[in-house]
C-alpha cells in the first residue's frame, strides 16, 4: 500500500470561517479523509508544534494556511511549516491578501491596542490590562513570582506571501466548499497550474458567471451611489445598474455569485484577476469612470455618499496593496512594557 499524502492545516489571524468552510464539505469530507492523512490541524486535532518539528523536512505534501500574519508566533509557525511542506497554500482572503483584519493596517498598533483594550464602550478594564511581551504576576498564596510571556503583535498585518514562499492561493472569505473541492481535486490528481496561481476559481470576472449579467446595460452611467441598507434592490436586475457598488467587474469569479443571488452586491472577497496590479486601484478606476458628472463639486457630492472608501475598495486587500496600509506605521510602545500584577 502506498502511503497517503500528508496534509497540514494551520490558522493564523483568522475568524474561524475558513475552518468552517472545510467542514462545509459535508459528506465529501469522508472522501478527503480516505485520500489523505492529516498530520497537523490545531482547530480539530491534538497535534503539537513538537510533532511537526519531528517530521522530516518536506514530508508534508500540502499545508493549508488560513488567516493573516499578525503575531510573532504566526511567523515562527509558518516558517516551520514551510520547511516541512512540499506545497504551501494560502487559504482564504486573509492569508492571500490580508482580508478584513488587514484593515487594521490603517492604524498604528498602539492605536489598535488602546482602542481594543481601553476605549470601546463595552469594555470593562479598570486595571488597564493589555497583552504585553512580559507580564510578571505575584502569586500571594505560594509567595512566588512567575513571568508570563506572550508573542508580540507585529506592527502591521501581513499576507502570508510577505513572510514565506506561497505555492498556490485559494480565494474567498471564506472559500466556498466547491472552490475548495475543485482545488483538492486538482491537488490529488496532480494537475497543478504554474506556481503562484489561484486554485479552484475562474480567471474571469464575477460578471461572467453572474445570473444578472444579461440585464447589465452595455454602458452604465450613474448619477448617484446607493448603499445596501438604503434600498431594496429590484430583483433580477443588475445591481450596478441600480446604483449599488458591486465589485463584480474587477473581482475573480468562481464563487457562483452567491451574494448576488441573495440580492447583495459583490464586496470583492475573491480578490483580483490575474492581471491586476492593485485591486483597490483597479476598483477605484472602474467605479469613478461610471459616475456621470464632469466637474469636481458634483463628483465630490456623489463620493461623499460613501463614508469609508478604503473599506469599500480594499475590504479584503489592503495589506497586499501597493501602499499596504497607512503610510509610515509606527512600532508599538504599549506592548514592550513590562507589567507587574499582584
Amino acid at each position, binding site marked *: 500500500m502506498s502511503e497517503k499524502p500528508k496534509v497540514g492545516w494551520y490558522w493564523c489571524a483568522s475568524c474561524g470561517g475558513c475552518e468552517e468552510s472545510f467542514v462545509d464539505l459535508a459528506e465529501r469530507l469522508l472522501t478527503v479523509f480516505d485520500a489523505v492523512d492529516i498530520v497537523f490541524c490545531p482547530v480539530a486535532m491534538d497535534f503539537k508544534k513538537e510533532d511537526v518539528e519531528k517530521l522530516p523536512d518536506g514530508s508534508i505534501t500540502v499545508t493549508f494556511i488560513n488567516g493573516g*500574519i499578525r503575531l510573532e508566533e504566526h*511567523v515562527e509557525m509558518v516558517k516551520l511549516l514551510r520547511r516541512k511542506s512540499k506545497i504551501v497554500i494560502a487559504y482564504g482572503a486573509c492569508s492571500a491578501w490580508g482580508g478584513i483584519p488587514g484593515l487594521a493596517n*490603517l492604524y498604528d498598533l498602539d492605536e489598535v491596542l488602546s482602542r481594543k483594550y481601553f476605549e470601546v464602550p463595552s469594555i470593562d478594564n479598570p486595571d488597564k490590562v493589555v497583552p504585553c511581551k512580559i507580564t510578571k504576576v505575584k502569586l500571594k498564596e505560594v509567595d512566588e513570582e512567575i513571568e508570563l510571556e506572550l508573542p508580540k503583535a*507585529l*506592527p*502591521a498585518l*501581513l499576507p502570508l506571501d*510577505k*513572510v514565506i514562499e506561497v505555492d498556490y492561493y485559494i480565494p474567498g472569505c471564506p472559500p466556498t466548499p466547491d472552490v475548495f473541492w475543485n482545488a483538492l481535486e486538482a491537488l490529488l490528481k496532480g494537475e497543478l497550474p504554474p506556481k503562484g496561481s489561484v486554485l479552484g476559481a475562474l480567471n474571469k470576472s464575477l460578471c461572467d458567471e453572474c445570473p444578472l449579467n444579461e440585464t447589465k446595460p452595455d454602458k452604465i452611467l450613474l448619477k448617484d451611489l446607493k448603499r445596501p441598507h438604503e434600498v431594496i434592490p429590484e430583483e433580477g436586475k443588475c445591481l450596478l445598474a441600480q446604483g449599488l457598488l458591486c465589485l463584480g467587474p474587477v473581482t475573480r469569479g468562481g464563487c457562483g455569485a452567491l451574494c448576488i443571488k441573495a440580492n447583495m452586491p459583490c464586496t470583492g472577497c475573491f480578490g483580483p484577476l490575474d492581471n*491586476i*496590479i*492593485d485591486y*483597490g*486601484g*483597479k476598483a*477605484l*478606476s472602474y*467605479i*469613478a*469612470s461610471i*459616475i456621470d*458628472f*464632469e*466637474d*469636481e463639486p458634483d*463628483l*465630490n457630492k456623489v*463620493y461623499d455618499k460613501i463614508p*469609508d*472608501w*478604503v473599506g469599500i*475598495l480594499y475590504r479584503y486587500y489592503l495589506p497586499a*496593496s*501597493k*501602499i*499596504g*496600509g*497607512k*503610510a*509610515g*506605521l*509606527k*512600532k508599538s510602545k504599549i506592548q514592550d512594557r513590562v507589567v507587574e500584577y499582584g
Partner: protein
Amino acid sequence: MSNEDFKPKIVVFACNWCTYAAVDLAGTSRMQYPANVRVIRVMCSGRVDPQFVLEAFHNGADGVIVAGCHPPTDCHYISGNIKALRRYTLFKRLLKSLGIEEERFRLEWISASEASKWVKVVNEMVETVKKLGPLKPKLEVVE
C-alpha cells in the same frame, strides 16, 4: 537628511497631445525647470490607471503629477480627461485615508502651448514635496 539635501523624485504622466507637447515646447524655448521630474509619455490622461500612480509611490516616488488636456473639450479622444478627472477626484480621498499627504499628488491640465504653466507646476510641486520631505518609509515588519 535635512530638507536642503533632499532631492524629491517626481513622476509625471503626461498626455501625448497636450502636456507632453508643452514639455517639449518648454525645452525648445529653453525654459528652465528642476530636474526632479521623470516624465512618462502616455497617449491620454484617461489611460493613466490609478494603479500606476500607486505603483509609482510604491517604487519610491515622492510625488506624482498626472497631466492632460483641458476639460471639457480639449481631449484628443473626446472624454479621456473627464475620466481622469472622475478617477483622480476620488483617488485624492483614497490617498488621504492611506496617510499620504494630498499635496503629493496633482492632476493638472496643461495645453500644448502652456509651457510656462508646465514650468510653474513643476516648480511648485518640487517646492511642496521638498517641504513635506520624503514619503514615509516603509516599515520593516518581519526581519
